[in-house]
């Protein structure tokens, strides 16, 4: 009661955060870790045609030699939206005009007796948390696809160096079903079997699209009309080029990259529109408070005298109920 208009007391937010969000997040990260760093999930062994021209592209070297090395890529695509969201939220909070509209959307939550979670903190944690979750979820999607399909990279036959002597491989339509004829480096072959969909494409497009959606729906610049489009298209373009680079370096088929694009944008769109609701304030708040308003409005029209009455009535009714029964 003593709390202000924009403050809301909630005891459930911290337990909910710890026992639901963090558990889900931890599970997701754990699964991504198993996919990425362990051999828990064996890749499906896919057959190939003898002398398949599509799989005989030159080997472009290890991933680190690529134009977009994985380390740089991961750092950039994780840091860019985080930084954009951070800067955007803080500037929104400290610019007066936007702050007011922000506070209307979002309430400060008082949890327990001491902890105030103000809108700035809540929004930053929510958006960045959802972004991180989406990143890991995309990674799981991509890994699951790669492991299940076991699609072969364009340079597979180059690193596999198959030994055709055992098989009848005169015609080009002969399908080699077992992968045991490979004589090349096993690690490289394992990597070459993970191609569909392209991880780089999916992650980069996800990150870029999430950042773009945040910029579009949050940052309102009246003075500069070109800053926002340039920023958005720049990030999207970078992600697009990352995907194309994979194809041009013979690391992925074109279909892999396209599937990665579709996958990443689907995840980003779903998270942006259905989960954080276009980065607006809590979407559920108006609908949730509607019954409260309806309930409270008539009471508010009366002098406050009635609240004790109401509570008393509640007690009495239960008492009378027990009497009757």
């Amino acid at each position, binding site marked *: 009661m003593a709390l202000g208009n924009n403050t809301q007391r909630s005891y459930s937010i911290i337990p909910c955060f710890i026992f639901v969000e963090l558990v889900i997040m931890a599970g997701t990260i754990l699964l991504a870790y198993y996919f990425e760093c362990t051999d828990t999930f064996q890749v499906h062994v896919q057959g190939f045609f003898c002398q398949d021209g599509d799989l005989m592209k030159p080997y472009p070297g290890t991933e680190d030699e690529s134009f977009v090395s994985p380390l740089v890529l991961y750092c950039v695509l994780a840091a860019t939206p985080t930084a954009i969201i951070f800067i955007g939220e803080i500037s929104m909070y400290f610019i007066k005009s936007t702050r007011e509209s922000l506070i209307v959307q979002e309430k400060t939550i008082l949890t327990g007796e001491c902890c105030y979670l103000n809108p700035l903190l809540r929004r930053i944690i929510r958006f960045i948390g959802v972004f991180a979750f989406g990143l890991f979820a995309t990674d*799981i999607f991509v890994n699951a696809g790669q492991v299940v399909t076991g699609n072969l990279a364009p340079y597979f036959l180059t690193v596999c160096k198959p030994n055709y002597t055992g098989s009848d491989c005169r015609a080009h339509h002969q399908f080699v079903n077992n992968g045991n004829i490979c004589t090349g480096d096993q690690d490289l072959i394992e990597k070459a079997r993970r191609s569909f969909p392209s991880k780089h494409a999916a992650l980069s497009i996800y990150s870029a699209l999430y950042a773009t959606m945040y910029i579009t729906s949050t940052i309102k610049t009246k003075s500069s009309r070109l800053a926002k489009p340039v920023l958005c298209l720049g990030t999207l373009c970078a992600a697009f080029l990352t995907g194309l680079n994979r194809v041009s370096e013979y690391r992925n088929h074109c279909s892999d990259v396209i599937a990665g694009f579709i996958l990443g944008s689907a995840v980003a769109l779903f998270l942006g529109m259905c989960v954080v609701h276009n980065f607006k304030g809590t979407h*559920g708040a108006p609908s949730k408070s509607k019954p409260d308003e309806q309930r409270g409005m*008539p009471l508010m029209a*009366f002098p406050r005298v009635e609240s004790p009455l109401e509570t008393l*009535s509640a007690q*009495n009714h239960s008492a*009378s109920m027990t009497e009757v029964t």
Partner: protein
Amino acid sequence: MISTKDKSKAPKDSMTLLPCFYFVELPIVASSIVTLYFLELTDLFKPAKVGFQCYDRALSMPYVETNEEMIPLLMLLSLAFAAPAASIMVGEGLVYCLQSKLKGRTGSEGSINAGGCNFNSFLRRTVRFVGVHVFGLCATALVTDVIQLATGYHAPFFLTVCKPNYTLLGISCDSNPYITQDICSGQDQHAILSARKTFPSQHATLSAFAAVYVSMYFNSIISDSTKLLKPILVFTFAIAAGICGLTQITQYRSHPIDVYVGFLIGSGIAAYLAYHAVGNFRAPTEKAPSNPPAKDALRALTQRGHDSVYHQNKSVSTDELNPQTRLEGMNRQVQREKNSLGSLKRASVDVDLLAPRSPMGKENMVTFSNTLPRVNTPSMDDPSRRHMTIHVPVDASRSKQLITEWKQKSVEGRGMTLAEEVARRAGSDSLAGEEEDHIPPSLYPTVQARTAERASMGPRVLIQPRPGASQLVHIPEESQANTSANISPKSSSAVRAKWMMMAEKGSTQRVANPPRLMQVIAMSKQQGMVSVTPKHSETSSSSTSSDSSQYRSPSERDSSSVVTIDAHAPHHPVVHLSSGNGPWEWKATQKVPDIQDTYELNEMSKDYRGFRPAKSAGVSPGSSVSDIEQDEPRYGSVATINIASGMGGSAPIVSAEAIPAENMMGAASRESTLRRKPATLTVGEKEGQTEETENYYKKIQANRRFKE
């Protein structure tokens, strides 16, 4: 409880629900399943003939035997059916549990009675969503089969199982690479047939349908309070569906394009069904406007009280109230909006004035018709009429004074008045013969014909402003008595709180309060004429003590009635008079000796216990029909009670000690009290009664404590 809640939301009875389900939904699903059976498991329809190229590499993939498949069709079907159905059932169960806990949830839908069965929202929603899911699965499989048969594209393993005998052609493959003849030499006809049905992939469409459908379900029912629960569920189903489709590619049973197109078709059907067949899993929207102001805590509680009474006495005949119920049903819809809006406005504008004219839904009248609401009904039926009745007072200022004073009184005496009224009514209904000696015969007919009664209301209300000065003198007795009882501020506040509680407890009666105020005022005039004597109060006290035990048994409103009877003791005869429902009865009743009246009351209250069931049974059906409208009126009545009790509590203002205790009351009520204080002061009299009243109070308190 559930039935009450739902009563307010949905039309309770549906004649079309079951027939529609039996004769429309079931045949559609059944026919689609039958068609699916013919398409899927019989050779009735042959796939279209499509040629192929010699040694086509894309068709030369190895053949994975049906029993070696990673996800055989049967497993896919059971998974695609069971996983979403189980998820929907669990989700609906949780929603239903939460919903019955927080009853005010918007968008919830009520239960429907059809064919003697009660289908609650959980059952209906589950059957609807799962049924649509089953139908969607059938439709998806059907569409997939039809497209597969129509296109007749070859699966990647076609040439493997076909084992074409190229020598049959007579032409070398080099000169005519495209072969349209059937040159298959393979033995496995079933495999060849299945190899000609591949576009789009059955697995992909079914899994995509199931995943998208259940994802949309979760997307619409999971609230935003947890940010990650929704995506994790959606992603889980999406990954499962994706893997399901991708295994078709890796096992060479479908081309990639088949799987992708299958995903598109499946999700398209799912999205269409989810949006247009089940309305995105939300409750039907046309019901939403009908229950906007529903559900406040008070109302739920009061309803519980009603229901318990109702259920207790269900077996008794209900014919008594039929005409009234019908009347209500007619203009219920129209009235509700006006009533609620008007009540809100008025309540905020002037609390003081609100008391007499507090908005009362007709349903209230039905509900409490056994207590007193008839007085109220006509004025409440529409705002204009209500205004008329209220503004009629002959002498405005004087009548206002009277009203406030009598509000105090009525608060004290309200319960008793009610109880007496009830008793009287019951008695008059059933024991007309017994009462005939002192009650004019006209009473009985009036009770039976409600409509006539309603018409007679107006005049009756009009009577109130007329009380002469002599009554004014008399009225304050009660407040004075009250004063002494409440001498210390603490005790006064306690008493007031008690009054509030009582007012709440007798929830059914509470609503009838405003009208009774009017009535009491009217009675006050009568009282003024009939001089109240100490002897009278004594008799009443005896009757009270005996009454208290009797009133407890009929229902839970005992405590209020007990107390009120005590406080109101001196008014017995007055109340008695009021039971005559027409203005013309006043004089006749006045002639009755006071003492006799009191005894009569006793008897009647005994009778009342016996007869109340019948009454309430008759009442509650009406109330159940129009539960929605009750809330608004109730707000008004609540306000009224507050004021009234405030008056009762602040009566000690005379002694100036109770003022601090009055702080609880709204400014408006205090103002009104202060304004009327002079009147109270001027008329202070009759200290003799004070002690008695005090005693009664104590007795009552002890009683209540004991019982609670």
